């Protein structure tokens, strides 16, 4: 009897375990053979709005199903798309549980800024992220080329065949050497150690010999006797290679504190890039200090870096969904959240000044007319083959930054010529947002 009793309990135990697995754990919910999958196209899905309540994604009846429309094409890399045949991506995928229950998303995006970003990137390959430094709100996130969520049926095979990878979100998943845009971090690290480093005078002979190798300035230019502030403004490789060598292992720590080398806690998945774990030679430190070598970053990370500098050393967690709203009562609000202090306030203030100098008389100057002062840093990521990638990170207005931006244009050549005008135009658009 005892054995029979145990055997029956064991049998039911198996059934309990099976129920538990298939009802709570098995990853089969979104399988296309599940008819409930098609059910979700027959129900009205929640909308996605920008910060001003303008619809970014909406569902409208189309015969038996509801069709999803998007207010602008570049949203496919942030809002994503939702399609009966091609599945879902971006926020549509991550917030599917909420959206499929009719709840709506209120994002921090601004449709006007997003459209400016789209305009600026059209026909290029690259990415743009615009943020509010004080809160971490993402005003625009674009990556070019993109797929148009409204035209998936018509263009799907072209998208698949496109060599430029329109499905790749370069803002979150594109990995690039930061080039000279790493210099503000190096300078920030130096300022954090020694506040007076900005007025130190360096002798820049145009090239620096380290053992049997040399580091050269861009175009081989020699700047002579310059202060460190000027070195940043003029993007002197010679000075920054030396600063990096002086900082040594401390530089690696600071790079990680700025959020490089690790995935950012964000509403969208993103890559962490690469910061070397150990650097053995002076030459490699010098390379790191000018953003070449092993270092790899995403445009989203660089936007967070620009934001942290603009926010006087406090890095805020970037976010794009500020509220999930459903029914009359259900509201789930995201609050701005600091990640960490990346440098002391005085160091950040000095760095802001140096970047303002770069915009006023250095490499980050622009010929565009602007109604505001801005600060920034350009970068040119040298690639093994093909032309260089152009970078710009910046913020405006210079004295009390309200917007920060990171721009990357693949094979754009020099940062000053290509990336700066895009960044300045986007800062202008971002400053027009509210207030």
């Amino acid at each position, binding site marked *: 009897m005892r054995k029979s*009793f145990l055997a029956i309990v064991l049998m039911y135990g198996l059934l309990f375990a099976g*129920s538990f697995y298939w009802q709570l754990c098995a990853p*089969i*919910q979104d399988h296309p*053979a599940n*008819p409930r999958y098609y059910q979700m196209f027959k129900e009205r899905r929640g909308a996605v709005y920008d910060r001003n309540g303008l619809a970014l994604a909406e569902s409208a009846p189309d015969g038996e199903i509801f069709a999803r429309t998007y207010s602008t094409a570049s949203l496919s890399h942030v809002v994503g798309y939702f399609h009966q045949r091609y599945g879902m991506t971006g926020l549509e995928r991550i917030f599917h549980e909420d959206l499929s229950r009719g709840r709506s998303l209120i994002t921090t995006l601004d449709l006007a800024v997003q459209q400016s970003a789209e305009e600026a990137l059209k026909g290029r390959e690259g990415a743009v992220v615009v943020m509010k430094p004080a809160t971490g709100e993402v005003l625009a996130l674009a990556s070019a080329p993109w797929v148009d969520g409204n035209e998936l049926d018509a263009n799907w095979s072209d998208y698949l065949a496109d060599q430029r990878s329109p499905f790749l979100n370069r803002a979150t998943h594109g990995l690039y050497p930061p080039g000279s845009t790493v210099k503000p971090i190096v300078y920030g690290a130096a300022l954090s150690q020694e506040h007076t480093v900005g007025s130190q005078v360096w002798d820049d002979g145009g090239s620096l010999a380290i053992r049997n190798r040399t580091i050269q300035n861009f175009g081989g230019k020699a700047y002579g006797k310059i202060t460190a502030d000027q070195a940043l403004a003029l993007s002197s490789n010679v000075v920054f290679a030396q600063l990096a060598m002086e900082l040594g292992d401390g530089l690696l720590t600071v790079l990680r504190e700025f959020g490089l080398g690790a995935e950012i806690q964000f509403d969208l998945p993103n890559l962490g890039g690469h910061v070397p774990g150990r650097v053995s030679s002076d030459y490699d430190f010098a390379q790191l200090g000018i953003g070449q070598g092993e270092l790899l970053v995403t445009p989203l990370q660089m936007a967070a870096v620009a934001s942290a500098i603009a926010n006087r050393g406090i890095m805020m967690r970037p976010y794009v969904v500020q509220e999930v709203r459903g029914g009359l009562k259900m509201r789930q609000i995201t609050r701005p959240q600091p990640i960490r202090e990346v440098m002391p306030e005085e160091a950040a203030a000095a760095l802001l000044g140096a970047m303002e100098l770069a915009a006023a008389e250095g490499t980050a100057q622009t010929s565009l007319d602007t109604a505001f002062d801005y600060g920034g840093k350009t970068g040119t990521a040298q690639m093994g083959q093909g032309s260089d990638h152009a970078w710009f990170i910046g913020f405006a207005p210079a004295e009390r930054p309200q917007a920060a931006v990171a721009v990357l244009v693949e094979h754009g050549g020099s940062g000053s010529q290509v990336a700066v005008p895009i960044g300045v135009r986007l800062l202008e658009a971002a400053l027009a947002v509210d207030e």
Partner: protein
Amino acid sequence: MIRIPYRTWFEFTGWLLCLIGWLFWLQGQIWWWQPLVLWVLVMVLFFLTRGLGYDAGAMPFMAVLAMTGWIFLTRLSPAWASSHTWGILIAGLAYLLGLWTGSKSFGHPLVWAGLAIGLLAATALFGQSAGGARAWISLFGLRFQPVEAARIFLVFYLAHYFTEGRSKRELFAVLGSFLLILAWQRDLGPALLVFFVFCWLSLHWQFSWLKLCGYLAVSVLGFVLACQWFPHFQNRVVAWTQPWEYLDSIGYQVLQGLFALRSGGLAGRGLGAGYVQVIPNVHTDYLFAVIGEEFGFLGTFALLMVYLGLAFWSLRLVHVMTEPRRQLIGLGLTLLLHLQVFLVVGGILRIVPFSGMTLPFVSFGSTSLAAQLGMVGIVAGLGGKGGGD
């Protein structure tokens, strides 16, 4: 553990009636007298069993299961539920018949064997087929499945076989012809069930590891041969091992059941909110998946707990029986019921290949319901008077 005080029992039926009343109000399409009739039946059976001095502890479990089945059939189709109401009434009579049969000790083993095989043979010769197996007999306009009763008679025979030490040759003849006829009818579920019950009873009667290994070897051999000989069985095995590769043919039913279960999650999508019309034969084979989708893991957990409670009730009763033959019959019938639960639910949960039997007390199907209530009646009857609360 199993003793249910009066008060609990009344409270419980009250809740059940509330649920049914809510359903009635919600759907507005069932006949109000049906739940009332069922409730009256359950109460009559409960007090009758008590009044006669038998253990009525099984009634709450059976009532919950039968009512759950009735509620879900109402949700699927009120027409099925109406028909099921009659089925439950007939099953009530079968329960009383079982109680009476169990309380007497009569019958010759060869009579039981003859009845079991005769019923099967009659089905095989004059039966009608439905759903892949020729398992129905039509008599005076009523259709029923004799195999449901035949396996009870076979358990009676097996009890005699062990206690009287009857000849092995006779056993081979009886069991062999029983299984062969079932195999010929392509009704492999009951064949499997009867074989397992035989093995279990044999081990219960006299346990040895050698025998256990022998039965395991025979099971494996039978499994392999069945795969070779019966394409029907082979399909079921393939649908069990690799349903994803046959998701719109033989794997369809299994997968749709799993999708239904998974979409239920923890608390379910709510009564009537499931998307279960896509599951083939949902009212006979797959009610468990419907319960899983609409009442969630909490619902299926509760359902399995009720089955487990019923199993404890009958095992306790069987345990205190002194006469070996009664004990064997009681255990055999308990196993028939709970191995069937295991094979059916396990089949839906992909623990074993799906064998296409009904979920005891819950599924649509009057014959199986009557046989199952009858079995519980027999167990209660075997327990004798004075054993109950």
